[in-house]
C-alpha cells in the first residue's frame, strides 16, 4: 500500500462509478419514451463528457442485473479510442451471463435489480483505487436506476449506504423509472449526494450533464437542485401506519404501535418479569462480556 502522503491530492480529478440498471424486465416494459438503446446513447455521451472534463478523470461502469452484477467498463483499462465499443461489448456479455443465471421462466411484475450488490462493488472498487496508485481522485457514485426497490435487500442496501457515508462518498441518484426510489432517496440524503427524478426522459443527457457532471469541489459553489428531503417519520411494522410514539425492539429495532410479547421480526422475547424468562433463553438483550 502506498503511503498516503506520497499521493497526489487534487480537487478536480474525479472517480465516477456509474451503476447502470440492466434489468431486462424493467427495460422491456418501460414505455416512458426512453428505450434502452436511447438510454445507452445518452449514457455513453455522458461518460465521454466526464472523461473530457479532465484527462485524469476515471469512469467505472457497473451493470446492476437481476441475478448478478458486473464491472463492464473502466476508463483506465479500456483503449481510449474504442470506449463505446468496449462498454457495449462487455454489456452484452454481461446480459448473456445474467440470463444464464436466471432460473424462473416468467415473473410477476418487475423483478428488482440487485442494487445492494452493485453498491458494494462500487464501494470496494473505490477503496481499491484510493489505496493504490499514485493519484487520489475525488470519488462519487452515480446510480442510474429504473426498476422498483427490492424490499428484501433493505439491510444490505442500508449497510452499503452507511459505509458510503462513513467513507464520505456521495451517492448521486437519477431515477429513470416511473416511481421514486426510497432506497436512493435515503442514499443521497444520507451521503449528501443529489437525488433527481427527471421528468423529460428524452432529455436525460441534459439532466446528467447539468446535475451529475459537477465534480465534488465545484458543488460547494454551485447551487444545484436540492431534493425536498426524506421523511424520517416512522410507521409501525404491524399496521404500516405513521406513529409518533411506539415500542421498539431493542434487538432489531423494529417499530410497533403497541407492546408485544415477542418481536415479530427477530423473535426476541421482551422483558417479562425476570422469573418468567427461562434460563435457556438465548436472546439476551445485552451480552455482558
Amino acid at each position, binding site marked *: 500500500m502506498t503511503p498516503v502522503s506520497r499521493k497526489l491530492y487534487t480537487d478536480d480529478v474525479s472517480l465516477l462509478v456509474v451503476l447502470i440498471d440492466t434489468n431486462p424486465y424493467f427495460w422491456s416494459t418501460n414505455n416512458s419514451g426512453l428505450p434502452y438503446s436511447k438510454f445507452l*446513447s445518452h449514457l455513453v455521451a455522458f461518460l465521454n463528457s466526464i472523461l473530457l472534463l479532465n484527462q485524469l478523470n476515471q469512469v467505472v461502469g457497473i451493470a446492476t442485473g437481476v441475478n448478478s452484477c458486473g464491472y463492464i467498463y473502466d476508463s483506465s483499462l479500456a483503449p481510449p479510442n474504442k470506449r463505446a465499443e468496449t462498454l457495449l461489448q462487455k454489456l452484452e456479455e454481461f446480459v448473456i451471463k445474467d440470463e444464464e443465471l436466471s432460473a424462473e421462466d416468467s415473473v410477476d411484475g418487475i423483478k428488482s435489480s440487485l442494487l445492494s450488490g452493485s453498491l458494494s462493488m462500487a464501494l470496494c472498487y473505490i477503496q481499491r483505487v484510493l489505496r493504490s496508485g499514485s493519484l487520489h481522485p475525488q470519488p462519487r457514485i452515480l446510480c442510474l436506476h429504473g426498476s422498483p426497490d427490492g*424490499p428484501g435487500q*433493505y439491510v444490505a442496501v442500508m449497510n452499503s449506504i452507511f459505509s458510503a457515508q462513513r467513507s464520505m462518498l456521495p451517492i448521486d441518484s437519477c431515477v429513470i423509472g416511473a416511481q421514486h426510489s426510497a432506497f436512493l432517496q435515503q442514499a443521497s440524503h444520507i451521503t449528501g449526494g443529489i437525488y433527481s427524478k427527471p421528468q423529460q426522459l428524452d432529455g436525460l443527457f441534459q439532466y446528467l450533464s447539468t446535475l451529475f457532471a459537477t465534480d465534488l469541489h465545484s458543488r460547494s459553489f454551485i447551487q444545484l437542485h436540492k431534493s425536498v428531503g426524506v421523511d424520517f417519520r416512522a410507521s409501525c411494522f404491524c399496521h404500516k401506519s405513521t406513529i409518533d410514539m411506539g415500542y421498539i425492539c431493542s434487538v432489531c429495532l423494529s417499530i410497533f404501535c403497541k407492546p408485544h410479547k415477542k418481536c415479530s421480526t427477530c423473535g426476541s422475547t421482551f422483558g417479562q418479569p425476570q422469573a418468567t424468562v427461562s434460563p435457556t433463553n438465548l436472546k439476551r438483550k445485552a451480552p455482558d462480556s
Partner: protein
Amino acid sequence: MSERQVIKRAKYKSSIKDPGTPGVLTMKRERFVFMPSDPRSLMKLNVEFRFIIGHKFSKEAPNKKALLNLTQDKGESYIFEFDSFPDRDACRDFVAMAIAPPANAGKASSDKPSVPPSSEQLSTAEMDRRIKLLQVDSELQKLHKEFVMGGVLTEAEFWATRKKSLDEKISSKSKQRVGLKSDMIFNVKPSSDGQSNRVKYSLTPEIIHQIFAEKPAVRRAYLNLVPKKMTETDFWMKYWRAEYLHSTKNIVAAAAEAAEDEELAVFLKQDDILASEARRKIRRVDPTLDMEADEGDDYTHLPDHGLSRDVSKDLTDSQYDLYKRSFLQDLNRHAAVVLEGRSVDVELGDTRSVAEALTRLKEVESANEASNTHVEQGRSDLISRMAELEDLQGPRDHPVAPLSIKDPRDYFDSQQANAIKTLGESQSGSKHKKSILNAHEAYGSLRKSISEIKDLGLTDPIIKSEVAMKVFSELTLRISNTKYHHGKDPHESILDGLPNATKEEILHQWTSIQELLKHFWSSYPITTTYLHIKVNKVKDAMSKIYQKLQEIKSSVRQDFRHPVSLLVQPMTQALDAAFAHYEVDFQKRSTKSVERPNGFV
C-alpha cells in the same frame, strides 16, 4: 408569618461617605423604623417594606464595614452601618424575607390560607448561593425579576424548581487538594552575592517536603542524624554542599569530599532506598510490555533528551560510578513524586514530623505490596494469556445470539410509505401494470437494444435543443423554488434570519412561558387553597404573555411576519393547552361546589 421583629444598633447614612447617624433600627413585619440616639436628630425613618424593592450588602471581611443598602422603588436608598456582621446578616435576612414575597407581605397577608408551603428562614449561605446564581445567569435574573419581583411567584416557589442547579453549585466547589509543584529541586539555584565566595540556598517547608519525598535516603539520614549528631542547620548545609558539588559536575572532587566526610557521602552517593524500590518496581512491570513498540517515540535521539544539562564531563572510571547521578533518574523520580501528590496530612512547618510521616507511608505501602501474594499469580496468568497463539486456539464461545431477521422487507415498508408520500406522489407505482414476462423474451429485447446501438452508433444529435431547453428551465425553476422553502432545511434556523431584537424578545418570551408552565402544571392537582391561588396568579401572568406575543408579531416587518408566526405558534399552543386544562378543572370544581350549599349562587 410569625410576629417577629429585629432590633439592632446601627448607623443611618444618607450616602456611603456620610459618617452616619447612630441609632436603633427596628425591623417589623411590614416596616422598618430607625430612631436616632440623639432625639434632636431629624434622621428618623419609618418606611414600609412594600416600597423596598431590593437590598444590597457589603461582603463580609475583617476590615470592611457591615453595610446594608435598601433600595426604594423610587430609586432612593437607605444605607445602614452595623456594629458587626452577624447583626447585619440578621437584618439582611429579615429584609429578604420581608420583601421577597411582596404579594404575601402586602395585600395577601389578610388571606390566611395563602401561606406558602415553605416560609423557611433562609440561611446566609443559601442566600449567597442564590444571589451568585442570579449574577452568573442573566437569563435567570430576568426571569427572577419578572416573576418574583412582579409578584407572580414567591421566592421559595421560584427556587424550588431550581434546587438542582443550586446543589450543583455546591458540589462544584468541592475541596481540591493542592498538589506538589512540578518544579524540580535543582531549579533551586544558589544566589551568590558576587563578592565573597559564598553561595546561598533558601529552603522552604515546601522544598523540604519535596526533598524528603524524592530522596528517601536524605529522609533517613535526617531522622538518624538530627538532632542527635548535628543541628538541623548543619544538616541542610551539608545537603546543599553536596548539591553544590553535584552542580559543579566535578565527580572527582565529589568523590574526594565524600571520602573525608561520611555524612556528606550519604548525599553524594546514589540513593540506595530508591534503588531497591526501583528494582522492586521493575519486577512488577507487565512482562508482556513491548518496549520496542515505542522506540522512536522518545527524544533519545536528541542529546540529553532535548533538555540542556551538560553531562559531557562524565567520566567512565568505574570507581566514580557511585557518585554519578543521571539526569533521567532525577527527572523520573521527580515526576513520580509529583504524580503521587501530597499524600501526607502534616503541617509542613515541622520538618521532623514530615520526615516521619513520609517514612510511615512508605512502610505501609511496602507492607501492602508484600501481602499481595496473588499478584504473582496474576502475573503468570497474564503471561500465559498473552503468549497464547491465536490461530492455535479453538473458537471462543461468545454469549451472542445471532440476529435473525425474518423479513427485512418490514423495515423497508415502514419507511417507504412516508418517503414516497413526501414527494407528493400517490401510491400509483404499486398499481403499475402487471406484465407476465418471459425471461427469455426480456433478455432478448435487451440484447436487441444493445446490438441496435452497436450497429447504428450514437444518435446525432443526442438531444434535441428544444428538449434541452425544457430541461434547463425545469431545473432552474426548481432551484429558484427551493429558495423559498422556509423551515424545511434543518441546517438553517429561522431565528437567525430575524432581526436581533426580535430574536431576543422571542427567546425571552419562550423562557418565560416555560417557567410559568412549569409552575402551572406542577400545581395540579389542586389540593390546597394555596395552590389554587398560585394557579390563578400564574394564569394571569400567562394571559399577559398572549398580549406580548401579539405585540411581537405586529411589530416585525411584513416579510418576517410569517416566520415569526411560525415560531410563536407552538408557544401559543402550549399556553392554550394550559388554559384548556384550567377551564376543564375549573368547571369540575364549580360543579362540585354546587353540591355544597355555600357554593350555590
